[in-house]
């Protein structure tokens, strides 16, 4: 009987904790949600890339698209220049939805070298990823050092940020 009472007390304490203030909100938003995710994920037949696309979102998708294009163009030494995130934030106002990956993360996703506008290696850039509201994402070739300089001058007032 005492063990039964103690079991009831344990159940009560568990329920109190799970429903107390922020714990309730958090438990529903996190562990319970993760359980719902698990129920979907366990039957998912997607491969590693599909899982990564879901997990990493639009940045990963853009990166992989860049990789595809570069592979099609057969450019073994492609170096990709990314527009500064402050440009997306201050000019295009799309920073919350989209952003350029860090070179290190881009390398993890694609195996390609990326640079930011303030990178010491920026002169090696021969492609630029452009994101616009109308055209979406494009990968343009940088054909000359002059063109690269023009691009860099255009971004002077936008310092790279994460």
């Amino acid at each position, binding site marked *: 009987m005492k063990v039964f009472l103690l079991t009831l007390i344990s159940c009560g304490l568990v329920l109190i904790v799970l429903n107390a203030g922020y714990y309730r909100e958090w438990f529903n938003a996190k562990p319970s949600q*993760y359980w719902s995710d*698990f129920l979907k994920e366990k039957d998912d037949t997607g491969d590693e890339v599909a899982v990564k696309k879901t997990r990493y979102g639009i940045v990963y998708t853009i990166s992989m698209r860049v990789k595809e294009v570069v592979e099609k163009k057969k450019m073994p030494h492609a170096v990709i220049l990314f527009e500064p995130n402050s440009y997306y934030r201050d000019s295009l106002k799309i920073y919350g939805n989209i952003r350029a990956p860090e070179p*290190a993360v881009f390398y993890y996703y694609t195996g390609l070298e990326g640079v930011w506008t303030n990178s010491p290696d920026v002169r090696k850039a021969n492609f630029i990823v452009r994101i616009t509201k109308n055209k979406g994402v494009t990968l343009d070739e940088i054909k000359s050092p002059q063109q690269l300089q023009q691009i860099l001058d255009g971004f002077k007032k936008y310092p790279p940020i994460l």
Partner: protein
Amino acid sequence: MPMLIFLFLLFCYWFSGFGILTLFRIRLRPAYMVTVGLLLGVAVASFVPFLLQLLYIVITGPTVFGALLAVALLLNIPSFLRMRDSGFSVFTRPFGRVRFRVRPYEVPYWLVIGFMVFVSVWRCYYLPPTSRDALSGPETIAEYTVREQTMINSFFGLDLWSTNNQFKSPFLISLQVIYKLAGFPYGQVWLSVVFLCFTVLLYHFLRERLHPVLAGLLLLLFMMTPEIYAYTFMILYDYSNMVFFCLGLYFLWMGVSGPGRAGLPGRAVGGVGGSDGLPRDGSGSPAMVSFAGLLLGIATYIRSETLVLVVLFLPVIFWVQWRGAAGGGGKVSEGDGVKVSGGVVLRKMAVTGLFFLLPSLVGYYLPVQLYIGHYLPVHYDLGGLVNNHLSDLHPLLQRYGDIVNHLLFGTFAIHLWGYLFYITCALFVAELVFVRRFSREARFWLYAIAVVYLALGVMGFVLPMFNLTETTKRALFKIMPLLVFYLANNELLLRLSRWIAGWEVSGGEKVAAAGVVGNGAVAPKVVPATGRPGAAGAGGKKKGGSGGGSGSGGGAEQSRGSASARKKNRKQ
């Protein structure tokens, strides 16, 4: 195939850990032998690819797994030597008295905690790493280590202007490499091993002192700290650092107190014994202090700033040794009555301190000084990051205030740690007001909490890059289990625990009423792992035990037995 290799890895971990425990002549209960062994094994594994890199050996499946097995065998050489006398029982004897008993009132906690563990493990296994700190450093290095067979790979040829994560400890890289080589595309599964072992350990630690109803509640509160839970499936350094730091402090407490005083799980500990001033009554020993130093060294290897914290625990060892030996200089007497001079005691204090600190110095030197300084093609000028205005203490006070106002109290703090900190504060104040004294063990954990808080403030002051909302926040992980350890030694909770245990085993109103005052005369005594009834004394009362009614591993049965015996005596 990955599952087979996973099992092989588990075996290597456990065997390595067992070897280390044997080297330190530490024998614990089976639950501790397995979990501490596995944690030690994970730590050993995290050195292996790093060591191969230091020796310029290519990092491939055969070299890594071969080295893991070789290390596990090497660490067990003393056990193999003893096999000539004792046979295979060298390995089986520590597990000879495995008893697994579940009480119904533990089940509700287990269900919720099990659910949270399961979800965490699944996410570790199924989802790729996402944290920016991992992707812009260790995870990418690990990925290209597997492809290029060296940790110093093409990653370091990139534009790394935006990150300093390439300079962080090889701990994460090594473990990621091992699991990627094992066939887990995202690695990470090692974190579940750490998480699971620590959860089991923490529960057993708590049950050594508290009734399972309270132990389960404290563990649940710890599990429900949102920020720490997130790091159980997000590979970074902080969770593992917290685990080894807390384990180190736990065994340090064992080393300076002994189970006779603390009601701890150490069953028998070797140790050299002798005139070091450390307690002789059980597990307290220089070997145990050195073992604690090893665990703290691992924590330093994971997060280098832990070294500062480790140094701040040297006074604890010196204090205990000095008091244990004499309490003063001049001619002093040891426990066995032999007179030794203060100089001898000082020398022994220095030796114990050195063995305690040495692993942390090594854990700092290898990744920070040797690896970054002499192996990596890019260098890290830590000196350039130091605050140049150290004479202006205003930012230091500001940092202490910010830690309290933003990270420990307020809405943001609740989102980070739940209500654990508030509950601890409430019980601390209650103990201060109503009991007006703290047990030795409670004081130890309060000291540990204070050390972490004060040191983090100083580190944030000296190194401005040690920012508040990221670095300091994650470094505060280390405090959370310390809060739980303190709560497990809070006299009010201990009295409640004794009362529940007394009520459960005796049933008489008189007994329960006597138990609630906590004099320990009627409530069943704690049965620590040593099997010696009434050994616990951390409660600070002359007769009071420190723990709850049922230590794990059969404590309840013995408690029940002793309580019924007392009842019989009273009737007679």
